[in-house]
């Protein structure tokens, strides 16, 4: 009997601590004022990041937070909050479903959650169409090869002395756009799925386990450029940026051809056709506008405008420009009116047809589960 009551007390403690954990913060009445007056210096805006601390998106978010705080009218605190789970889906869901649309919660989304959205992964309860953008950050990617494993130039791609091997995390990841790119260029590539991350794939590349690889701008500059200098890697092309439906060179790598130019070099004609259209749409989503800072659709417009105007000033801050160079590469923030058009381009690229076609491509070629 004594033991029973002990367990009962323990259970009570358990319940008490659970309810403690769930006790939320106090709410405040919405403010109906102009963007310049919306935030005050003792306010805190929470920036939700759906991945763990230390990742790429987290690092950029943490870089931006103090600059945003300085440049948003009223100088509110900007606090990074990591809400992880479900490969980024959990944080997005929390933002869409459970966070108040009061101007004190923003979501910093990135390519991989957009890929999950494109592929209609299980568990998604958010919709980018129900959000309003404050600003965006572009990204880029370089495809490079291992010259000792048979590919030292773009021409070698069609007749490599060793079979082309590409290492990937999995088909339902941002690697899917690389698979699209190989198809656009008509390359015969064996894809090996299951690597842990881009770092592990880079090691496999140096070992010769794979011989063609892709890296984001910062990963390339830090980890691959030294290999290029020593002759262990050769840059082939970039995915470029989509401008008005055309693929142009990546501003971070003006000396490297874009995928469109490579197609012309190999076949004498610019790329065209169904896969090319899907590639451009997905590229628009993953690179041209890789990261977006969102508010909920029904968040106060003056809050969104305050952050949007703050971001314009951040993008002109010389300190930020110098640091940003090292954290996300030599790209310009997408701010002001540009973000409106960029997001509407992105949303049309995320249309139902594109999503169906993209999924179908992966189902047909890479054994993705139909959904």
């Amino acid at each position: 009997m004594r033991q029973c009551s002990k367990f009962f007390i323990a259970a009570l403690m358990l319940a008490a601590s659970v309810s403690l954990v769930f006790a939320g913060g106090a709410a405040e009445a919405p403010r109906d004022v102009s963007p310049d007056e919306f935030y005050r210096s003792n306010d805190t805006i929470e920036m939700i990041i759906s991945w763990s601390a230390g990742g790429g998106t987290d690092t950029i978010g943490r870089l931006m937070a103090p600059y945003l705080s300085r440049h948003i009218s009223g100088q509110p605190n900007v606090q990074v909050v990591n809400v992880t789970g479900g490969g980024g889906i959990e944080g997005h869901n929390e933002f869409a479903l459970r966070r108040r649309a009061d101007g004190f919660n923003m979501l910093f989304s990135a390519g991989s959650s957009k890929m999950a959205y494109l592929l209609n992964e299980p568990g998604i309860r958010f919709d980018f169409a129900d959000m309003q953008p404050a600003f965006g950050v572009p990204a880029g990617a370089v495809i490079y090869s291992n010259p000792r494993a048979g590919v030292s130039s773009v021409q070698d791609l069609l007749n490599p002395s060793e079979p082309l091997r590409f290492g990937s995390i999995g088909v339902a990841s941002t690697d899917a756009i690389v698979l699209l790119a190989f198809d656009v260029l008509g390359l015969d590539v064996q894809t090996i799925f299951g690597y842990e991350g881009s770092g592990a794939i880079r090691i496999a590349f140096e070992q010769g386990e794979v011989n063609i690889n892709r890296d984001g701008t910062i990963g390339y500059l830090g980890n691959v450029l030294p290999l290029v200098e020593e002759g262990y890697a050769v840059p082939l092309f970039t995915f470029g940026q989509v401008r008005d439906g055309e693929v142009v060179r990546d501003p971070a790598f003006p000396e490297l051809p874009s995928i469109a130019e490579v197609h012309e070099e190999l076949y004498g004609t610019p790329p065209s056709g169904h896969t090319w259209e899907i590639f451009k749409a997905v590229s628009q989503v993953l690179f041209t506008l890789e990261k977006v800072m969102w508010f909920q659709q029904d968040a106060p417009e003056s809050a969104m405008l305050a952050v949007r105007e703050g971001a314009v000033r951040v993008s002109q801050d010389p300190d930020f420009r110098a640091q940003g160079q090292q954290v996300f590469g030599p790209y310009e923030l997408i701010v002001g009116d540009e973000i409106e058009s960029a997001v509407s381009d992105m949303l049309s690229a995320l249309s139902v047809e594109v999503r169906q076609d993209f999924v179908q491509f992966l189902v047909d070629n890479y054994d993705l589960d139909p959904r």
Partner: protein
Amino acid sequence: MLEAGLEALTMILQPARMGFILLGSVIGIVVGILPGMGGAVGMSVVLPFVFGMDPYSGMALLMGMVAVIHTADTFPSVLLGIPGSAGSQSTIMDGYPLAQQGQAARALGAAFTASLVGGLIGAALLFGTVSVARPLVLALRSPELFMLTLLGLSMMAILSQSSPLAGILSGVLGLFLGSIGGAPAISRYRFTFDLIYLLDGIPMPVLALGLFALPEMLDLLVRQTNIAGQAELSGSWVEGIKDAIKHRWLIVWNAILGVLIGVVPGLGGPVVNWVTYGLAARTCKNNENFGKGDIRGVIAPEAANNAKEGGALVPTMLFGVPGSSTTAILLGGLILMGIQAGPRMVSTDLPIMLTIIWTLAIANVFGAVLCLSLSGVVSKISLIPGKLLVPFLFVIMIVASYQSTRHWGDIITFVVIGILGWVMKRIDWPRAPLIIGFVLSTPAERYLHLSMSRYGFEWMKSPIVIGIAVAIVGILFYGSLRGVKKEKRDA
């Protein structure tokens, strides 16, 4: 190299930077002592402050913390039987029984001395090999990594000698639990039942807390005593230091092993921990007391888990591949300070790399000294009556599990795994194989899949693969042979 090393030392020996190392060490101790809070939490706390610091000072703060967490996490492992972090799980096996015999201070003294020496050996080895370490990592392709996961899995057998069948079942259960969530090679989710919480799998800290901590707490309540089971403590931390000196070669050997496993990308902290414990339990003479309070079962993993931090910096800094969530945040912090990990760490950025190594060594000394001086007082926790201690610990553990992903699923998982752990403890099933299976489930599948899809069956011809296979067989048979011999002698 030596000259550059001394130059880096003068960079770090400035009062402000030493202050940051000390500050980092103190934060590391707090984070290490609080159960379930690993380096990732401490890192997230410190990260905002690193912003805008010069790289050497910021590095001092971050590395000061990283280096000390695996020293301080010994406190909860030994005193309460609760894993302080992923790197001190196996310390429970012998550390907690020692505390139950009233010898907590001795166990802590030995553990901290082993940590100190192990950490210094790790830093020294890193310093000596950093410029030639790249080829070592590059020699480990997917097939070799797969064999190393098998080596880890073979520890299951070693840690379940008392009841082999129960051990195997426990290990298989661990493999199964580890397979929950996204599959490593194909785009499919397993056993997630459409719950978003399970998409990423069960978080390791929650599993370890539930499996080891909850059963101990329940039993402590039922027994109605304190942990030490007596009113007085015997043994002091000085005695522990003497133990450590007596077993100095065990420390050296395990520190080297810790560095080597740390260098392997993609295996992680718990593997170092269990492999070194398992090997010590198998290869030490007179090993029948392992699991019941053998001081060597504390010394071996503690020497290794601090040394591992040195080894783990090789893939982290030279390849930009984080070996754990802690090092992942370290990389993020570096980027914020304008440093990109990669091959340049041993060329143009060598001064930074050397500073990191010095910080590691200095922080290890700080951490060990601080912990040693605390151990006498803190070990009195084992004299607090269970009915006062357990409610407090329950709250701490619930919060610790909840902060793992900050999802209510953490709490439910903690309770469910806790009940499982309690049942296993009651029917005397070894719990160590379960956690080994859980940790290695995904890497084993991943590297086997990669090996097969890249090399077919060719990969089995690699000399390193064959070498590791021979080593595994050797380890498995070494103990049984000795067991047979002993039976003959006894007969």
